[in-house]
Structure formats: structure tokens, C-alpha cells
């Protein structure tokens, strides 16, 4: 259908931290949820209304977030589609809670577990059901990898000794991280174990190499491969489920979210390096003429190229903190989320209008 391919955007408002008491009339809150699709931001002079595919208010349960956000994506993954779930928001906006669950507890059994463990459960539930239905004719192979992108470099979280991996493309398999460890999974519990192990690596790395977790993107990928035997014909289908924890949005100030700022040259010799960005922007608005731009996308967009438009199911969960102190960050998160709805793969079918019609 027409809106089928667009990225779905969900906004979740976390409750303010415990101990904060608000006087009636929502003093101290910078937004209010109007309906399950709209948010009003108390901006001045005029309040702003934002509309999204789904807005989860402070009371929304983990289960209900999962069913409205992820269920559908996991299902289409079983049908051979690639799916991607992004979490976006400033540090402290509840990203980890939404995706993983309460920190420092066994999230796999906890009643407040997040989208990721629930997705694992649901995925393996669907696999088991398929297997029962099809009998011995159908088998599944699940593998996962877990990588981190920091400073435009790729690290393997399942192999802490490795560093500096590269993105490559394969004509049959699409984009992949060359040399990333792939672990075979046989159950949801196993998947969760691999995830938490990798997550821990991420934290370890953050102290030993002085990087902060909130400055890196983490991508957990499950490959689901099904093999169906029908007489002599073997039918193999494979699809990916990407779970992406984006770097804290406040860290991206100096990249895309801030529009109008000039890039300073500073005093160092290698100074005018953003001139290339300016020129690229000029070429970008060119009028559909054939052109080549020398500068590559970021590693993250390249890896998820397929998820940003094309034939993949993608959703973004934008997490916001309602406190009025967070007004600036919340506004920028909501703006980002609104822009995300417009993301579509720009490549189009070249139809040369010349040539004879008659």
C-alpha cells in the first residue's frame, strides 16, 4: 500500500525520575500527550503539535510498546522481509529502558523487560510454530552479530580483541561487516545472553579506550535463514532483523541536527575541511542531472542503507523526557522524528523520457 514503505515513527514519553513531584497543571513539564498520535510541546509563544504513528504516554506498558512497535516487524522478518528498529533520544530519555528493560537486573525474565528481549521471544516462538506446522520439511538457522560504530570506526562487540572492521557489499547478501563474528542462536535465551555479553563489552571498551557509550551506535543483527524442502527443490530464504541503539542525540549537535552554524576554521593548518560538505550540499540540490558525489555516507547509514527506504520495514522509537529542563533536547528529538518520516530512498527508476512514443 501507499504508506507501507515509509518509516514508522513512535514517540515514547518517559515518566520523570522518582522523587520529582509536579504540581497540578503540569508545571515543570514541557509537553503533554494529547492522544495516541499527537503530542503538544509547550513552546513559546505558540505551543507546537506533533503527529506521529503512535505516541506512548508515561503509563504505557512495555508489553504494549512491544506490540505496537516490534511485533509487526518481527512477523514480516519471518516472511522474508528485513526489519530494523531504531532507538533514538538524548541520554536519560529512557532508550535503554525501552529497548532492554530496567538496568542491572535479569532482563530476560523481568516483567518490565524491553522491546529487544520480547522480540527475541516472539521470533523464536514464531520459528517453533512454523517448524511444527511444516514438520521435517522446514528448518531454520539463526545467527547474530553485534557491532559498534564509534567515530566512524567499526568494532566487533562479540570479539573484543578485534578492531577496525570494514563494510563491504555482496551481490547476494547485501551490506555486511567484513570479519564480524557470527554466533549461531538456538533460543531466545541464548540470543539474550549474547546481547548482554556484547553490551558489557561496550561498557568495558568505554573505560579502557575512553569512549562513552552514548557516543557510539550499537547494531545487533539477527539473520533468520529458513530452508524448505519440497520434493527435490530446496527453497532458501533469509532476512535480517536489526536492533539499533543510536548514540545519544545530544552528541550529534555538530553533525546533522544543528542546521545553521558555520564551521569554524580554527588555527590549525588542516582547517577548511568542511568546505567539502558545503560543496556537496550545492551538488545535492542539483536538478536531477547525472552527477557523482565523492563523499560517502556515514558508516551507519551505509550499513542500514536498505532499512532507510526500499523493501524493509523500519521504525524509529523516539524517546523523550518530559521535564521542562529538557525542552531543547525534546524539541530537537521531535523534529528529528518528524523528519525521519520523510526519509525515503531517493534512488528512482531512470526512465529516459526521450525516444519515440508513437
Amino acid at each position, binding site marked *: *500500500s*501507499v504508506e507501507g*514503505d515509509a518509516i514508522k515513527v513512535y514517540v515514547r514519553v518517559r515518566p520523570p525520575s522518582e522523587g520529582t513531584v509536579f504540581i497540578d497543571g503540569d508545571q515543570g513539564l514541557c509537553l503533554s500527550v494529547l492522544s495516541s498520535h499527537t503530542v503538544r510541546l509547550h513552546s513559546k509563544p505558540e505551543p507546537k503539535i506533533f503527529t506521529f504513528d503512535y505516541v506512548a504516554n508515561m503509563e504505557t506498558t512495555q508489553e504494549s510498546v512491544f506490540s505496537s512497535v516490534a511485533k509487526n516487524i518481527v512477523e*514480516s522478518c519471518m*516472511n*522474508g*522481509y*528485513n526489519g530494523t528498529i531504531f532507538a533514538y533520544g538524548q541520554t536519560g530519555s529512557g532508550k535503554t529502558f525501552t529497548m532492554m528493560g530496567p538496568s542491572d537486573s535479569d532482563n530476560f525474565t523481568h516483567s518490565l523487560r524491553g522491546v529487544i528481549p520480547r522480540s527475541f521471544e516472539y521470533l523464536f516462538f514464531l520459528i517453533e510454530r512454523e517448524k511444527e506446522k511444516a514438520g521435517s520439511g522446514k528448518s531454520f538457522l539463526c545467527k547474530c552479530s553485534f557491532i559498534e560504530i564509534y567515530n566512524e570506526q567499526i568494532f566487533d562487540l562479540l570479539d573484543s580483541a578485534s578492531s577496525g572492521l570494514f563494510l563491504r*557489499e*555482496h*551481490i*547476494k*547478501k*547485501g*551490506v555486511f561487516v567484513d570479519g564480524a563474528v557470527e554466533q549461531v542462536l538456538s533460543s531466545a535465551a541464548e540470543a539474550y545472553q549474547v546481547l548482554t555479553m556484547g553490551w558489557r563489552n561496550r561498557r568495558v571498551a568505554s573505560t579502557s579506550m575512553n569512549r562513552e557509550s552514548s557516543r557510539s551506535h550499537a547494531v545487533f543483527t539477527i539473520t533468520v535463514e529458513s530452508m524448505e524442502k519440497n520434493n527435490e527443490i530446496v527453497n532458501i530464504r533469509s*532476512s535480517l532483523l536489526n536492533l539499533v541503539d543510536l548514540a545519544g542525540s545530544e552528541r550529534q549537535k555538530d553533525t546533522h541536527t544543528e*542546521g*545553521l*552554524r*558555520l*564551521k569554524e*576554521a580554527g588555527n590549525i*593548518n588542516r*582547517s*577548511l*575541511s*568542511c*568546505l*567539502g560538505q*558545503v*560543496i*556537496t*550540499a*550545492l*551538488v545535492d*540540490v*542539483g*536538478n536531477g*542531472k*547525472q*552527477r*557523482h558525489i*565523492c*563523499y560517502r555516507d556515514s558508516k551507519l547509514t551505509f550499513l542500514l*542503507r536498505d532499512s532507510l527506504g*526500499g*523493501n524493509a520495514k523500519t521504525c524509529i522509537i523516539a524517546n523523550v523526557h518530559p521535564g521542562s529542563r529538557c525542552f531543547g533536547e525534546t524539541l530537537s528529538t521531535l523534529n528529528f522524528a518528524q523528519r525521519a518520516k520523510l526519509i*525515503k*530512498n531517493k*534512488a*528512482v*527508476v*531512470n*526512465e*529516459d523520457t*526521450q*525516444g*519515440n*512514443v*508513437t
Partner: protein
Amino acid sequence: KMAAGGGWAVMCEKFRAARTLSAVESRKDPETEPYRSKYSARALLQEVKQLLSAAEEGGEARLLAVRRAVLEYELGVNHTDTEELSAGEEHLQRCTQLLEPHRLSPDCVSLYIQAQNNLGILWSERDEIKTAQTYLESAEALYNQYMKEDGNPPLDPSEHFMAEEEKLTDQERSKRFEKAYTHTLYYLAQVYQHLEMIEKAAQYCHTTLKRQLEYCGYYPVEWALNAATLSQYYLSKQCFMESRHCLAAASVIFSQAGQVPSAEDNETEQDQQDLRQRKAEIARCWIKYCLNLLQSARKLLEDNIGELDPDRQLELKAQRRKEEDEKEKGRKKAVLFGTSDICDSVLAMEEKVSSMHPLDFQEAREIFLVGQNYVQEAKGFFQVDGYVTDHIEIIQDHSALFKVLAFFEEDYERRCKMHKRRIDMLEPIYADLNPQYYLLISRQLQFELADTYYEMMDLKVAIGNRLEELDSHTIKKINSLAQLAIKYYELFLDSLRNPDKVFPEELEEDVLRPAMVAKFHIARLYGKLITSDSKKQLENMQASLEYYTFLVDYCEKYPDAVRAVETELELSKEMVGLLPTRMERLRAKLCPFI
């Protein structure tokens, strides 16, 4: 006098220390105290300011004012660096006020320009680009006025707190002054881009690049990529001479990159790989240049059915002869890159390919061959194993080069062979490609293959029409080409279906036109199939009618679609009117007694 001299030495010392803290030490500050050195520098500057006002008595007023301005400037930059914009603005404003009367004198002009640069940055951080623009444009104007009226290398701001014997050479002064002005232009390029004054932004990018070359402030690879990208801007504006100049300069400067030994000499494999990739990227910009030049020439030369118009050809050739000389000189002067030695190499590079529209096959072929060489070079790096998307894009360009060259070819058989070459490069890559990951490219290939077969079929029909009678070989050829075209159009249309294999009720905007064109072409193709079997013929007509009807019905249901397919729709309506009668007649012939 002695005491003052001693005080002066202390001031200079503190000033120097502040600058070192700010520029060097601050980079090592811990994350928890990011501005530690900046704050120390600020304290020192304030001390100097106090010492200066203490020494005020009896000093020369102008000299004092200028020194104070230097301190205000440093304090202004310091405050903006530490995110205290309002305080920063105050200091910078005070600096320009103090300098206002002397801003055109050699000891002030550089400082004044730099203060304005910083005010420009400051206002942009407040998202007030227009205000930033006024500061930067006035800095630009001041530079020009100074160069016109004086032009001697002016004092660098740092020299105001230096002992006589440390002062800079004229050469160094000039270098720093020019650099400050280059920054003005670089900021202006950004300002114009933000204000969507695209042409002006491009012009300022170009001038910035030019000045980087002149004052040796560049890294070859980075510079070359910027120039190559700028060439693509000129392409979109159809400025082929400027585009070629940028590309030639990019290639020349890039070749320096390999010659300069790197700092540590033990270049990693990765660096080498990067360098090779950059070279291939520049090659791809050249491919686009050749392609655009050829396509633009085709536009000029084609008649109303898209064929080469010989009258127009003669006309354009005569016109070109007239214009050739004057044009080249006038346009070029303004944009030329580089000092004389670089300039010579760039000119030599330019001579390898024309920047004029090719007007006949011979000229077109020369440009095609240059483009084809760059295709080989680019493919050498962007191999399918590892670079699927890039590799296919290059192949698509190669195919497009053949397509536009075929336009200039008058012999239909040879033209057909050129299209066959396109098929031969596109078909195998399409067969290997997994549409699950490369849906869009896959669609592009399906459509292009379909179109190419369609074009070949048309050519064979045209060749056949010249014969007395269609021989069976030609008929077979036409039919098989038409079938293949139908096959690929159908594959394209199938790619639009949802997982349950249902064709979308309403087409998305980006596939609307191609989908409608595919339907329309299939309708025509069924009409072109040749058969002596009347029953078969009737079936083909029926199929044709169904596809034409699709267009008509769809546009009736979604009137917005009409804009995208006006010509096709008109013809489809006509056919929907005609075909049933023709089919009726054919049926009557088949069964004359009913």
C-alpha cells in the same frame, strides 16, 4: 622609562603564554574540565589588560587603543570558545570600536577583519545568519579596499605584543593576512549555502579552493576531491568549461598526493586503499562529465521524434565556429586555478577532452572513448565483490554512454549493436543481483533492460520497413526482441507487488511514471508482434487493449496521475477507441458466417 619597559616585557610574556594555553594546551584538557586552559588564558589576558591601563598615563593614545583592541579581540574569542556568547560579543564589539578609525592602516586591518570573522561565527551560532552575513561581507569589502589603497603586508595581530626583534617577515605577514581573508570567504561560502544562494555559494567555494592553492594551504587529496565535487555542481548547471577545469585541476593535484611521502613513511595498506578509492572517485566524476556533455549535445540536436536532425547539426556547427574563439577566453579568466606551473599541467590535462558540445559521430565518439577509459579505471577499484552498488552504478553509466553514442550513429545495424553491448553488460549483473537487498537497483536494471530491448526492436522494425518484404529471420528477431522487452517490463511491474503478489491499488509517486510507461510500452509491444495466425493476432490485440485500458482507467480513478503521462494517456485513449473495432473486423474475417 625603565619601569615601563620592564612592564612591557611582562605583558608580552603573559600575552604569549595566554595564546599558547588557548591554542595548544587546551587541546589536552580533560573531558571533565574542557575549558581549563581557556579559563587560565582568560585570566592572563585580563591581567595584561590591567597592566595596560595602569601604564596608560603618558602613552601614545593610538598605540594604546590598538593594543587594547588586540586584548579585546583575544578575550572575545576566548569567551565565544567557552560558550559565553554575549560576553564574547561585547569584547569583539569593543575591539572593532577601538579600531574603527584606523581600520585601513597596516597595523589594524588584519585584526579588524579577524574580529569581523569572529562576529560572523558568533551570530551564526545564534542562528542569525543574516547578521553573520553583514559582518563577513564587510570584512570582505575591507580586504578589497585595503589591497587597492595600500596593499603592503599588514601586521599580524599577535605582533602587537612582541618585542621588535621578534617581528615577522613581510612574507609571513602576507601569508597570515591572506589566510584570514581566505577564512572570510570560506565562512561566506557557508553563509550563502545556508541562505540558499547556491550560485554565490559555489563561487565562494571556488575562490576558496583557488586561494588554498595559491597560498599552499591544502592537502592534495582533500583539495582534489573538493574540486571534483565542485565540477559536479557545474555539470548540473551545464557549465562544461568550468566543470572540466575543476576536474583537470583535481586530477593534477591528486597526482601530487602520491608523490609527497607521508609523515611516517610507513603508509598502511588502508591508506593506500583509500588513495586508490579517491582516484576512482575522481574517475567517476569524469565519467559523469563525458555523459552529461554527450546528453546535452543530444538534446540540442534531436528532432521531435528524438532522432538526429541534420539541419540543426549544420546550423550548430556554423554557430560554433563563430563563437569558438571569443567564448573560451572570456569565461575562463575568472575561474582559472593555480600558479603557472600547476596551470600548465591543468591546461595539458584539459586538452585531452573537449568542453564543447559534440555535433557529429566522430566528435561524440572521442568523448565517449574518454568516458569509457574512466569507466575501466573506476571499475578497477569498485569491483563487484565488495562494492556492489558502486560497481553497478558505473556499469549503468557505461550503458548510458553507449546509449547516447548510439544517437549519433546513423547506421541502424551498427546502432543496434551498440544497444546489444548494453544488454551484454547489464543482463549478467541483473541475473546475479539479489532484489531483497538491492530492490531499487534491481528495478532500474529491469527497466533499462526492457527499454533497451524495446529500442532494438524499434530499430529492427525500421530496418525491416526499408526492405521490399519482411524475411522470416527479421520477423523472428523482431518478435523475440519484443518478447524480451515485455519480459523485463513485467518483471519490473512484478517488483511493485506486495508480499501477497497483489499489484498496488494506488502507485507510489516515485514509481508512478515508470510503471505507467511500462504498461504503455507493453501495450505497444503486443501491437508490434508479428504473426500470420489470426487467432494469435486477436489474442495480442486483446492483451494490448488490456494494457491501454489500464492507463485510461487508472487516470480516471486518480486524476493526479494524468500530469505524469499526458502523451501516453492521449494515445492510450485513442487506442482504446480503435482497437475493439479492429478486433471486430478481424473476428468477422475469422468466422465470416457468424
